């Protein structure tokens, strides 16, 4: 069946694609024959939707750079007659613009795939559009879970891949009297709700739970309460300027009272990466702990080669974050799958990416057909004085469990028991 096509080009090209889809949509040699015959260029267009301004601009810039590098690499190995063209959109952190830009990509620009969105808010906003146009969203950021949409491929970690293994490591070593801070939206709320539940199960105690807006740069009230409560550790789910202010404040607190030094009372984050360390004044976050499914300092041959490519494009000093590596991986996976199967229909691309592991900079990547989520490794890193992370603990890739289905014993026979 000939579907709406996202391949752009002259009318002849479109006809050729139609012919291709009717005959041998999965056969690259045939596909090339068709285009040699017609003699026109076919372009794969992929939407890249990241905010490079606004409160989480550092993360957005890293994602966009990762995507750009992937496009550059794919261009080196494109078959003749096929081009790849990214369609960049920069919503600058504004909800309304995410919608407008995503709609333009899907409706007017011929994109059927968008790699993008950082916050859960923006992801939830654009998913209905992605569904309406039957596109595929590639979401690469760690998030709070409780989602599994058929029009989304998730390559960022969810709680069983970040928070659960983090607590497995942390609670026996530092204690279970925790103070929770978070951004005043779903990431902060849900991460802290889950943390409360997990710490409760472990017999621990929550000494406080406070929220700040993303743009807030005054964390004094939180810091005063932390100083008074003296927790064993602090779970930091703040985002952007409020997170930087809090970490800087913790450094001042530690200078005054060694109880709050990172080795005694660490601040642990599940989304703070290489790309944001430069935003924190005076290396204030040094020695604090972070989880990620990728660190620049990972010692693998694949990563060494990858970092050389990054250095060639962005300079030697550039540290790679899990956001950079995630966006790079998603763009490559998306484009290479389209090239491999000769079709950009989301249903076909989705089926193919779920069919088996692919070697990537994140390791051997498997997308679970049940949840559309990637299996991911867990790494815990300690922030080094000059930036980057010293890796303290690693676990091999584990399948995502976005609804935490496997985390609890079945509760059949509880209050849902059949009453006769």
């Amino acid at each position: 069946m000939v579907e709406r096509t996202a391949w752009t080009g002259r009318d002849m090209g479109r006809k050729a694609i139609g012919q291709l889809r009717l005959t041998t949509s999965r056969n690259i040699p045939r596909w090339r024959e068709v285009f040699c015959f017609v003699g026109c260029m076919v372009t794969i267009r992929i939407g890249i939707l990241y905010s490079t301004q606004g409160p989480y601009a550092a993360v957005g810039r890293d994602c966009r750079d990762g995507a750009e590098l992937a496009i550059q690499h794919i261009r080196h190995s494109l078959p003749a007659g096929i081009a790849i063209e990214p369609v960049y959109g920069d919503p600058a952190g504004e909800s309304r613009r995410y919608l407008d830009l995503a709609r333009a990509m899907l409706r007017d620009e011929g994109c059927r795939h968008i790699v993008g969105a950082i916050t859960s808010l923006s992801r939830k906003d654009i998913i209905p559009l992605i569904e309406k146009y039957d596109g595929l969203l590639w979401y690469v950021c760690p998030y709070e879970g409780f989602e599994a949409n058929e029009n989304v491929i998730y390559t960022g970690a969810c709680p069983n891949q970040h928070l659960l293994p983090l607590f497995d490591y942390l609670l026996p070593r530092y204690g279970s009297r925790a103070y929770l801070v978070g951004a005043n939206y779903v990431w902060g709320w849900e991460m802290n709700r889950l943390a409360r539940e997990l710490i409760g199960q472990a017999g621990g105690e929550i000494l406080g739970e406070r929220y700040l807006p993303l743009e807030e740069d005054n964390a004094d009230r939180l810091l005063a309460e932390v100083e008074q409560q003296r927790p064993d550790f602090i779970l930091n789910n703040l985002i952007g300027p409020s997170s930087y202010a809090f970490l800087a404040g913790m450094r001042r607190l530690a200078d005054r009272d060694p109880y709050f030094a990172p080795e005694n009372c660490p601040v642990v984050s599940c989304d703070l990466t290489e790309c944001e360390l430069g935003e924190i004044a005076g290396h204030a976050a040094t020695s604090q702990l972070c989880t990620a499914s990728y660190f620049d300092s990972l010692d693998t041959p694949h990563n060494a080669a990858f970092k050389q490519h990054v250095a060639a494009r962005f300079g030697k000093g550039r540290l790679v974050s899990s956001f950079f590596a995630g966006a790079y991986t998603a763009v490559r996976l998306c484009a290479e799958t389209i090239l491999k199967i000769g079709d950009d229909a989301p249903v076909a691309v989705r089926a193919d990416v779920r069919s088996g592991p692919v070697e990537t900079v994140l390791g051997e990547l498997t997308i679970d057909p049940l949840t559309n989520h990637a299996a991911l490794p867990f790494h815990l890193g300690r922030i080094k004085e000059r930036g980057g992370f010293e890796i303290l603990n690693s676990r091999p890739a584990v399948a995502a469990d976005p609804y935490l289905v496997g985390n609890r014993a079945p509760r059949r026979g509880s209050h849902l028991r059949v009453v006769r």
Partner: protein
Amino acid sequence: MSATPTFTGLHALILHRPDEGVERLTRQLERLGLSVSVQWEPLDSDRAQPDIVLVDADQGWSELLPWPAGRSPVPLIALLGSEAPGRIAWAIEHGAGALIAKPIAASAVYPALVLASHIHGERLASADRLTDLLERIRLRPLVHTAVLAIMQARQIEEAEAYHLLRRCAMRRRLTMEHIAAEIVAGIEPLPEAG
């Protein structure tokens, strides 16, 4: 604080004609750890009951669900495309605790499960409480009789007699009605004053 609701190991029954939406619903329920069956015929009350029922409220007829209106023994979710008040009323009448609008969006399934289970739990608890209260109202004359008996036997005022009876019930960890019944029946001796 709320615990993470989980549905692992539960069995969901979808009462709906098979279609693409039902396939999507089935996949999403399986992602959430439930086993799923689909049928478009009345639920057989003799067979093992599912833990959760999702019913097509657009086309459902009353015999599809074997229980009296409003007496659903399991959480019930209405699948509804229509906006017709009659169909919404049908869903309410049969005890739907949540609804999922058609076309079914995957993201609507988990919230509906949580809501319907919660509402169902609340209804069961309310029904238990109501039964308890009705029973106590029915037995209220016994309390009155027991208070009169204590007043006469101990030569005290009504308020003091009531207080004695209440203290006795608390000590024995029984309801006032229960202890009153035992006193009136002569099983329990009259409580001592003071």
